[in-house]
């Protein structure tokens, strides 16, 4: 079954973007770009919530993106994309399927189809929904060496904690540290079907 991987750059204080979607604080270099390329190549679908989808679509289709990061731009534009949104009318970025509801069912369907893994970028609101529905199979959190002070937190408030198992870590020359986790599933309460 295909895995759903959540990948995000975060600050030490837990933000995945600064105010006004600012990403200037990202520590990006050749080592990071090699990692990003390998990661993107290893999946054949990208999942987004509406806001991240719109921001990414407005960047990766520009000539700036194609000039500065041609390899990643090509992959981002070509790969199958799935955007979850109740309000979006039409998804206009190349190769996108718009899913309007039944998140759990639709994701389970995607996971059962043949193919490589799926990856979720940004999309903190959607990621929280996925986490609460136990749909995330792997967390890859890249902590950047910065305390941003203000921004949008990646992990939204939930009443239940999510215990994890650390698989491995990778330290980058830039000071970024990538932590790989799987969710703990053995002790999970079975979903209540009837009370």
């Amino acid at each position, binding site marked *: 079954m295909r895995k759903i991987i959540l990948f995000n750059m975060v600050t*030490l*204080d*837990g933000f995945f973007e600064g105010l006004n979607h600012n990403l200037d*604080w990202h520590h990006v270099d050749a080592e990071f770009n090699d990692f990003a390329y390998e990661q993107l190549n290893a999946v054949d679908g990208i999942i987004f919530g509406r806001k991240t989808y719109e921001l990414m679509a407005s960047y990766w289709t520009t000539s700036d993106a194609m000039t500065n990061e041609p390899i990643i731009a090509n992959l981002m534009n070509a790969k199958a994309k799935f955007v979850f949104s109740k309000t979006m009318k039409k998804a206009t970025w190349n190769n996108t399927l718009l899913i309007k509801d039944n998140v759990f069912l639709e994701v389970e369907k995607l996971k059962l189809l043949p193919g490589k893994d799926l990856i979720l970028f940004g999309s903190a609101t959607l990621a929280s929904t996925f*986490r609460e529905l136990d749909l995330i199979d792997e*967390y890859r*959190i890249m*902590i950047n*060496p*910065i*305390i*941003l*002070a203000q921004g949008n*937190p*990646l*992990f939204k*408030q*939930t*009443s*239940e*904690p*999510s*215990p*994890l*198992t*650390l698989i*491995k*870590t990778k*330290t980058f020359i830039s*000071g970024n*540290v990538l*932590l790989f*986790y799987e969710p703990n599933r053995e002790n999970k309460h079975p979903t209540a079907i009837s009370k």
Partner: protein
Amino acid sequence: MHISLDSFVAGPNGEMDWIKANDEIFDFVGKRISEGDTALYGRVTFQMMESYWPSAGAKPTATKHEIEHSKWYSKVHKLVLSKTLNNDSTRDAELSNTKIISDNLAENINEIKNQPGKDILLFGSPTATHSLIQLNLIDGYWLFVNPIILGRGIPLFVDIKDKIKLNLLTTHQFTCGVTELNYTVDRQ
């Protein structure tokens, strides 16, 4: 500090049962803290420490960690941030290597930093930590990231004005799933 992946230091009611602590971590931590000569606490953490560590090493069931840390605790110079405790002469003799800082936090801390001596280690103390970070008095972050997303709780970082750049010095992966992240503050 022990933190969750979402940067909390405790649950909403101060819960710490999710923090992984074992001999592997105690030995690792013990090495570094024995290199410091001063410990800094907020009042609540200090009172917790005072109620346990002075006699912990003397119990018949004391573990190796408890014996070692108890010895260290009685020797280390202690700084306590508190407006309500005070340095008066009726205090217990055991607190003689303890100095209470009740106001002019930045001035007092900077004076101590300017004196010769080894590093000052701040333990626990979320409220005191918030104040010290806000006043730019923290020079390094030695964090133990626990394998859990808590979802809510007391954050490590509260009301910070400006961004703080960091330099990663070392990391370490523990078998129980905790990751050490050791940073200094980049003041350039």
